[in-house]
């Protein structure tokens, strides 16, 4: 059977997201959160529970920083009374602080402000096609797989007018993976410099957001925020394709405010 015909066998595999919700995206356990707001049932949480220090117990109030969480599941296994998995792939945020759950009240206002600023910057990108340049700044290799998956027939981001480009000169969005190795600082700086404005920068993955488990190390920054100005933060180890897609749509202002 020639390949053209085999192609037809794909049938309708492509997701309807973001126009329609996608059951896989909805069901995917993409984050962990504290189940109790306020005090940890009076039981202190062991400092060594979380390998990356994502869990904070400030003045008896439990907080979990998704930007540091590598989704190892240990907190849920050992303290199912305090932590649980959350389904849903809409994990990208426009503010680093907005990755901390439960959110501090003042974060809401800050997020609203950056959303409006970003929307003003990317107004031109609303209708036309969007070109993404990927830069690996010290990933473990899995983030590249998930970014490439956006081109497979299930996600098929071309249908949304989203394309990957080989040259920074044609890019609207920089999708940056990895922890920010010192060896990539200069190549990354050159890429940012060569990219026209307006430019939106996505920190893709927990390593890119905070350094994850790889930082601290003599060879890396604690996330790429130390190297470039980041607009969209998407955690995950690695972030799934739906989370990356959420980040991309957020970057170009195609997610309505309530989905932020």
């Amino acid at each position, binding site marked *: 059977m020639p390949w053209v015909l*085999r192609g037809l066998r794909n049938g309708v595999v492509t997701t309807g997201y973001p126009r329609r919700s996608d059951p896989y995206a909805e069901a995917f356990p993409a984050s962990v959160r504290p189940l109790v707001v306020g005090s940890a049932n009076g039981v202190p949480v062991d400092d060594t529970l979380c390998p990356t220090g994502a869990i904070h117990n400030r003045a008896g109030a439990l907080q979990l920083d998704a930007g540091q969480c590598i*989704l190892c599941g240990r907190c849920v296994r050992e303290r199912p009374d305090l932590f649980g998995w959350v389904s849903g792939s809409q994990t990208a945020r426009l503010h680093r602080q907005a990755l901390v759950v439960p959110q501090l009240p003042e974060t809401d206002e800050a997020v609203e402000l950056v959303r409006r600023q970003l929307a003003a910057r990317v107004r031109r990108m609303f209708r036309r096609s969007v070109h993404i340049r990927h830069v690996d700044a010290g990933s473990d*290799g899995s983030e590249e797989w*998930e970014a490439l998956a956006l081109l497979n027939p299930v996600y098929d981001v071309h249908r949304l007018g989203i394309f990957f480009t080989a040259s920074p000169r044609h890019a609207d969005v920089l999708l940056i993976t990895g*922890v920010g*190795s010192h060896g990539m600082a200069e190549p990354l700086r050159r890429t940012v410099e060569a990219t026209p404005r307006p430019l939106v920068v996505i920190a893709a993955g927990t*390593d890119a957001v905070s350094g994850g*488990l*790889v930082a601290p190390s003599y060879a890396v920054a604690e996330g790429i925020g130390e190297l470039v100005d980041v607009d969209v933060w998407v955690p995950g180890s690695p972030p799934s394709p739906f989370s990356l897609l959420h980040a991309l749509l957020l970057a170009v202002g195609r997610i309505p405010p309530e989905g932020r």
Partner: protein
Amino acid sequence: MSRSAVRSPAQDPVGALHHALHMRLASGQRFAALLGRGDPDAGTSLTALVAHDGDVTALSATLPAGVTHYPALTPQLPAAFWYERAIHDLVGLLPDGHPRLDPLVLPHRDDASRLLPHPGAPGQPDRIEPYERALSVHLHGTGVFTIPHGPVRSGVFESVEYLVETPGEDIPHLRIRPHAKHRGVQKRFEGMTVDDGVLLAERVEGIASVAHALAFAHAVETLAVARVPVAAAMIRVLHAELERIANHLDVLGKLTDAAGLAVATARFGLHKEHTLRLVGALSGSRFGRGVVVPGGVTALPRLPADEVTAELDRLQHAINGDVRALLDTSSFLDRVRTAGPLDPELARTHGALGPIGRGSGCTDDCRASRPYDGYQQLAPPPVAVRSAGDAQARMQVRIDEIEAAFYLTRQAIGRLPDCDTDQLSVVAQPGAGQAVGWAEAPQGEVLYLLDVDDAARISYCAPRSASFHNLMLFPSIFVGDILTDFPFNEASFGLSIAGVVM
């Protein structure tokens, strides 16, 4: 016999190591790694890993404080070429007589002002930036150009720089500079508990998370004299084989992409997506992360056995159809046949690993030669081997391995109902000491040389990926025009740079 044989190891430790290595390699054992540790000011050591049926043996040479040079092994053992460069970068030892000591993972100055990671030595350096000027002095030749510019690649790739050197009239030569994404992972392990260590191991080479976690866990389990429960051993096989299927599908997708077969690329991309979804449905992570822990696994598969089997059937049926179509596409076969040949003799002396080695006649596969976990109980299909050494042979090996992986996953899931699933892990509290762990990743054998101290903390951890060992061979497979062959050859090697420079 060489002179080193009659000198005592204390007088000439590296000579003794070299001699011991030579004897083992002469009897058919395989050189698998050369790793360094320590700080020349306080004393260093070199450890060679030698693989053979049933075990991996560590041979060490200790160099006293103040010794900064040692006689290079590379002149007699070309497979040590990159290892000695990495040791120079990380430990700071100078191998005398090394043919070309370019920086590999961490370019640095060779003077008193230098700061080095010194794996295995106490303490953590604060910040070490690569010293780029150490690179340029090693470039020769009239014309040097890059493909197409690095280290940032065009497309979604890991960062790495490839340089094409044209020294005088000679054939162009490919050089690889992977250092830009060095993350200092080896040093990061130090001081961790083994429970945190396994999570870092999953992130050394993220597309082979399960294999790295297994190799690490095996080293811990050796030190702890722990035996994982049968159910855990089966779940480990299930995930290791699904990881293999996903990786091999990734290579098929990249090969067909290089050939411009858009529909085939889409089809293999779809199958890979379904594989990652199955892994995610079983474990919560599309990469099987968080499954393997020292002593066993964290949980049972989240899907009932019959659903897993049904999905495996569906997936295998779909993949087989497209593989058959691919093997019928003569324009594609013309491209892979004879492309990127790896000389079987070079593959043998180098100890080429995984599908790259097995495409050039090397038969080693540690699932068969040093079986672990469920591979001990299940009857694995015969090791897939081809002898032609070209891109087609490597692809054929991967296709055969996909088939075998489906067989093994079904066997593993089929055994689960008969296992005691109340206990999925045993306590694996490692005693102080050193151990080697291994696992067969999709890319080939992964090794971990692990030291744990009295407080059960990691004091030294050296992962050795198949990507590191094999990438050394990459320049040797270019016989025609480098630029034309590049995408095919790169795809058919199927390696990860994260695992090379870590």
